[in-house]
């Protein structure tokens, strides 16, 4: 350490860390694609008190929010192979359950996790769009689906967008926990590179920078999108 930073290693490893970005993004995008619609539907069930789903959503949210992601990862990572194994032996599939790419476990955990968070985000956003607008849409002859697509969802999205941005950024950061699944994402790649010459400080700086750049970029994109959506609120704001 006394010789100061190894700049060559710093720069090389930056690109190693950067090569983990696609995996982090893949997990983020898959989780959002599952969680956005599912979270919205479950949020609706909590508002409309559609009984069975509503209970389920309530319990689900409290489970996911009440436990650390890393624990959820360990549970999924250790229990799903067992479950799969019993299914595979029962039906004689040709498959080695321990060869499953760990990214699937990441997809599962982060989708579940993000869904729970988005249920709450959408629930509070839906509450800000008055039920009266839905009724007005019905009374001029729109079907429920049309009313949601054209009136309710666009407004809900605008309200929820800042929170969805926060959720997305948190999700990107949380994908660093993928190292617990031996996933070749940003953190793991840089750490492995550092193992050779004990350049941990450089590696951590690189990891830090990559997440910072990635998250800033995502926030910037959200801001742009928000500006486009929000034109009708200009006067209120």
């Amino acid at each position, binding site marked *: 350490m006394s010789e100061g930073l190894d700049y060559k290693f710093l720069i090389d490893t930056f690109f190693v860390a950067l090569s983990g970005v696609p995996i982090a993004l893949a997990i983020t995008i898959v989780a959002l694609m599952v969680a956005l619609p599912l979270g919205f539907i479950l949020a609706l069930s909590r508002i409309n008190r559609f009984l069975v789903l509503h209970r389920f959503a309530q319990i689900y949210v409290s489970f996911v929010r009440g436990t650390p992601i890393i624990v959820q990862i360990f549970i999924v990572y250790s229990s799903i192979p067992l479950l799969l194994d019993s299914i595979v032996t029962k039906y004689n599939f040709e498959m080695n359950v321990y060869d499953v790419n760990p990214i699937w476990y990441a997809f599962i955990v982060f989708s579940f996790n993000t869904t729970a968070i988005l249920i709450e985000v959408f629930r509070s956003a839906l509450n800000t769009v*008055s039920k*009266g*607008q839905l009724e*007005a849409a*019905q*009374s001029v*002859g*729109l079907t429920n689906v049309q009313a949601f697509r054209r009136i309710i969802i666009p*407004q809900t999205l605008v309200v929820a967008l800042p929170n969805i941005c926060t959720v997305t950024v948190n999700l990107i950061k949380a994908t660093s926990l993928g190292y617990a699944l031996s996933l070749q994402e940003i953190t793991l790649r840089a750490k492995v590179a550092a193992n050779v010459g004990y350049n941990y400080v450089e590696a951590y700086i690189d990891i830090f920078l990559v997440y910072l750049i990635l998250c800033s970029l995502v926030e910037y994109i959200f801001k742009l999108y928000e500006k486009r959506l929000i034109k009708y609120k200009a006067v209120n704001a």
Partner: protein
Amino acid sequence: MLEIKNIQKSFGESKILKGVDIKIDKGDVVVILGPSGSGKTTLLRCINFLEKADEGLAVFDGIDINLKTASKRQIHSIRQKTAFVFQNYNLFNNKTALENVTEGLIVGRKMPKEEANELGKKALNKVGLSEKYNAYPSELSGGQQQRVGIARAVVIDPDIILFDEPTSALDPELVGEVLTVMKNIAKEGTTMLVVTHEMSFAKDVANRVIFMDEGIVIEEGSPKDIFVHPKEERTRKFLKRVLPEDFTYYI
């Protein structure tokens, strides 16, 4: 043209509508009066299926529709023939005034956009908002918002427009502009069922007044019958409470 028979509706234990019958002919302007909580809003909502009645029949141009068991198609057909003006306007906040008015035409009725815009502009002109086609609801005063609400109802050319206290959320100085618009469309022969506390509107514009209390129709008749010769004690008491000191009935 529209006949409502024996509407009943309960919320939980409390019976809000206890069998209401109303008959409306084409071109009628019928005003419903009654103390707050008497079920006026619930009645209008049941007619437009925003609330499902426990019992009751709507006869629309001779076609019976059971308010309790109506199919989706029947509900849709009633909504095509009726329009609703809400106490809180309920404009679509993400749409401009013109889009608010044309939404039902373009999406609900699959009308081509140019044709819908044409009709929408005409309707907005009619309510005095020719300058505000592209304004969002957040840029409009309460009175202007309610006039958009009325244009949105008028534009679909319904057989009847249901008004639920259209002026009671407004600042007093904005009530007049909305009532003027309502008078104008009444003059054009629009059939209207209006819940209001504006006695001057009932007196000047209505051709029939219905007094409701505790979920039943207590008395109905011409404005003169109700305001000058109310038969029922409850009607007299209510009118005494709500009519201004200087309210006089001219024929």
